[in-house]
């Protein structure tokens, strides 16, 4: 059972455009929602994260929008650049208990930004 559902599977965007990746979850116990970025041949790296007490977090060109009632969150990449071409994973976690340290990942979105 996929705890975090991510779409689209792949995304092609023109340079300078906006890239939007969406994720949805069911478990209301989740309290941390990170996005990871993975370049070919590298390990995933934390890009930006949000907690459910805020609806938006912005870091440079990257913004997370969070809708607690809809149990959805999304990553927006403004002014997309060819260097942003990578696989993006959304994830969710909850602290404590037997699931200590457990991250539930979405299936990933392959983003290609054309110059």
């Amino acid at each position, binding site marked *: 059972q996929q705890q975090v559902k991510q779409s689209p599977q792949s995304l092609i965007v023109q340079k300078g455009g906006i890239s939007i990746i969406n994720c949805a979850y069911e478990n209301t116990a989740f309290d*941390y*929602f*990170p996005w990871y970025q*993975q370049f070919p*041949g*590298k*390990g*995933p*790296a*934390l890009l930006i*994260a949000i907690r459910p007490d805020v609806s938006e977090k912005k870091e440079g060109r990257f913004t997370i929008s969070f809708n607690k009632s809809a149990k959805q969150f999304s990553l927006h990449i403004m002014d997309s650049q060819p260097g942003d071409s990578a*696989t993006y*994973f959304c*994830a*969710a*976690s909850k*602290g404590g208990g*037997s*699931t*200590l*340290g*457990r*991250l539930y*990942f979405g*299936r*990933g979105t*392959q983003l290609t930004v054309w110059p």
Partner: protein
Amino acid sequence: DTAVSQTPKYLVTQMGNDKSIKCEQNLGHDTMYWYKQDSKKFLKIMFSYNNKELIINETVPNRFSPKSPDKAHLNLHINSLELGDSAVYFCASSDSRTGFGEQYFGPGTRLTVT
């Protein structure tokens, strides 16, 4: 200064062999993980150790055995390798004091079983 390192980076072996992958982190973290990433890029958690204690043990064949000699090291031993074990294996670490969702990944080990 590599934060999370893995050896080897590439591993090519035949079915039925036994192999090990080593992982070390110099971040002072107390929690370490093994993930398997398949050809479709799906990241699946295999094991998690907190202060050398096994915390997460997903439904992984018992041919896979993790070992944590200390908080900075988490090794993965695989017995009787099968074709389906071919994947990229990532080690990761996190600090339970600052949040388990912030994980630092190693560069991965690409395992190819022929």
